[in-house]
């Protein structure tokens, strides 16, 4: 019984060249992250502090969010609260309608993906334009992002070239990334200048000042919010940080971990509305407050969406973002999906080799791999475990618990070497799907030890 992830991964791997490119490119980003982290001697201190700051913030959310609300209001912003995706979409739609917005520009926001904002607004006849280059490419291709920071990592330049020929009047057959980027620049510049409203997410919301902080390399969030009279910013409750000093820690970690840069090109602090404009901020729960109650998984809320866990994950790199059933892929996506709806997203927990590389690169010390392990223990409880593997495990446990049985099995094991494949690899052996059995030794370590065939350090002298 394969999971949806493993089936989708098989499809992804059919294009071997693309799969190899995907793997190597993300590994290159991981290597850049390593280089950056090593240039900062206090790196581990930063990670520890970031983790503690997030644990503090996420266990003082009521205090910090109300402090934020008070300060943002004093700055002239209007603060809204949305308990779920429906309310979030509704507030945005009402704002756009009451301001007669026909042209709406958006910068990247995973929250809007989570809440299905674009399809919702499209259904209401509002023209939403994603302005991050990767997001724009995907929007025009009607595809979702496959990575949180590099959304179009699975798209080739030729596809972008052909798309821009059709949608932006680009030259035929020119697939140069510089040329294509500048075609999009010109096309989107015009859209920015004529937009009626702009939307951003938030990387951080600062309780003590009411600042909304957005980090981009392209400057798209700023182009949008600098030209329009209405700025809507929305953030999930876990994006709150207590004060500006906390930002000192997070801004040092975010880009270094995510893309291997010392900092993003733009770290924008939105505090008050533009002259003559309006600034609306939406604080969104959508299941996050529920996650607070689970001590095993509360740390998932630490995540700052840098994407480092995806870049390092051997399974993500070799299976691609679309192999996961939750809209956020990789180790953090596996955990977020399970926290939101375990029955629906249980297929993803198989997409992990438990190498724990993700836990080691995470800048806010989310114990990603350890949490995936914990979710696997709960699969039976939610009726999502694999029955064949359950029997195998029960069998293994019986063997391990009974030394006589274990030794007998060990003695018999070399017989398997000579067995024909159909006996070894069949429907009953779920473990054997995609794996080869090792060749069993004729003699076990135990027996060799008893016969003094094992040389200790002492003997070798």
């Amino acid at each position, binding site marked *: 019984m394969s999971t949806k992830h493993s089936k989708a991964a098989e499809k992804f791997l059919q294009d071997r060249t693309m799969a190899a490119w995907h793997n190597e490119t993300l590994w290159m980003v991981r290597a850049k992250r390593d280089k950056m982290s090593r240039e900062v001697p206090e790196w581990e201190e930063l990670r520890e502090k970031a983790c503690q700051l997030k644990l503090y913030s996420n266990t003082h959310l009521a205090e910090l969010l109300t402090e934020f609300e008070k300060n943002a209001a004093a700055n002239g912003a209007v603060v809204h609260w949305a308990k779920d995706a429906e309310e979030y979409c509704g507030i945005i739609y009402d704002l756009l309608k009451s301001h007669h917005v026909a042209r709406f520009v958006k910068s990247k926001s995973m929250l809007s993906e989570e809440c299905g904002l674009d399809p919702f607004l499209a259904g209401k006849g509002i023209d939403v334009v994603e302005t991050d280059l990767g997001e724009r490419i995907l929007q025009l291709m009607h595809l979702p992002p496959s990575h949180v920071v590099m*959304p179009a990592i699975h798209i080739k330049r030729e596809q972008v070239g052909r798309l821009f020929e059709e949608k932006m009047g680009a030259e035929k057959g020119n697939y140069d990334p510089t040329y294509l980027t500048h075609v999009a620049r010109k096309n989107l*510049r015009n859209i920015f200048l004529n937009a009626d409203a702009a939307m951003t997410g938030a990387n951080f919301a600062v309780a003590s000042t009411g600042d909304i902080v957005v980090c981009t390399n392209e400057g798209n969030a700023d182009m949008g919010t600098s030209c329009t009279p209405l700025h809507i910013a929305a953030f999930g409750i876990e994006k709150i940080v207590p004060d500006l000093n906390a930002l000192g820690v997070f801004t040092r970690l975010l880009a270094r971990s995510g893309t291997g840069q010392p900092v993003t*090109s733009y770290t924008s602090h939105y505090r008050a509305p533009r002259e003559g404009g309006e600034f609306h901020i939406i604080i969104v729960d959508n299941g996050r407050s529920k996650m607070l109650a689970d001590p095993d998984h509360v740390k998932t809320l630490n995540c700052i969406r840098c994407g480092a866990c995806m870049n390092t994950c051997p399974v993500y790199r070799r299976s691609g973002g679309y192999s996961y059933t939750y809209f956020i892929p990789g180790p953090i996506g596996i955990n977020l999906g399970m926290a939101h709806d375990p029955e629906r997203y249980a297929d993803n927990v198989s997409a992990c080799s438990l190498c724990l590389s993700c836990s080691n690169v995470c800048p806010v010390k989310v114990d990603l791999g350890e949490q995936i392990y914990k979710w696997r223990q709960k699969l039976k409880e939610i009726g999502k475990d694999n029955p064949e593997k359950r029997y195998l495990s029960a069998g293994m446990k019986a063997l391990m618990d009974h030394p006589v049985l274990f030794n007998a099995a060990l003695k018999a094991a070399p017989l398997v070497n000579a067995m024909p494949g159909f006996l070894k690899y069949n429907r009953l052996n779920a473990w054997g799907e995609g794996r080869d059995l090792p060749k069993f030794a004729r003699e076990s370590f135990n027996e060799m030890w008893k016969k003094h065939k094992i040389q200790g350090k002492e003997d070798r002298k």
Partner: protein
Amino acid sequence: MSSRETILEHIRRNTSQKYEYPAWEIQATDYADKISRFCDAVRLSGGEAVVLQETESLDDLVRRRFPEARHIASQMEGLACATTRPDELAAAQELDHTDVAVVEGQFGVAENGAVWIPQNVRHKVLYFIAEALVIVIDRESVVSHMHEAYRRLAGQDYAFGVFISGPSKTADIEQALVMGAHGARNCLVVLR
């Protein structure tokens, strides 16, 4: 019950163990030569940083570096080459087609080449819309790292502020790095 109350009530009900605020300080790396580290960091981010020489004025420098520029927008005093006073424009959109924007930054950060700019012009789009951005800072203003930077922001009153590190960039097409995604294609920091 309003959504605000519902959310706050859920938060309070579901929060069990509370963690303390980590008040301890990070032993952050300080740079002996902040200016040279800053210049290196700006270069790494795809920009350029120069120290203004006594023999040259800012006006001369801008003219020398951007001889082709036709539209130079700046609100700074004594910049004779400026063709547009951006604060006099009614709409932000009028700044489109600006070749060079010359703006004042408040301080630089040595570790990453970022410059803090609290909004000091009428249209903040000036920082993003020009083909080339020139940011002028005081050479004595460079701090070592972001901790120091944010300590400097404490109590500051700004409607909008931004750390800018190098030009606008993207690698969204096959991870090929391209300058000038939406904002400035070139970024020059002048330390005077």
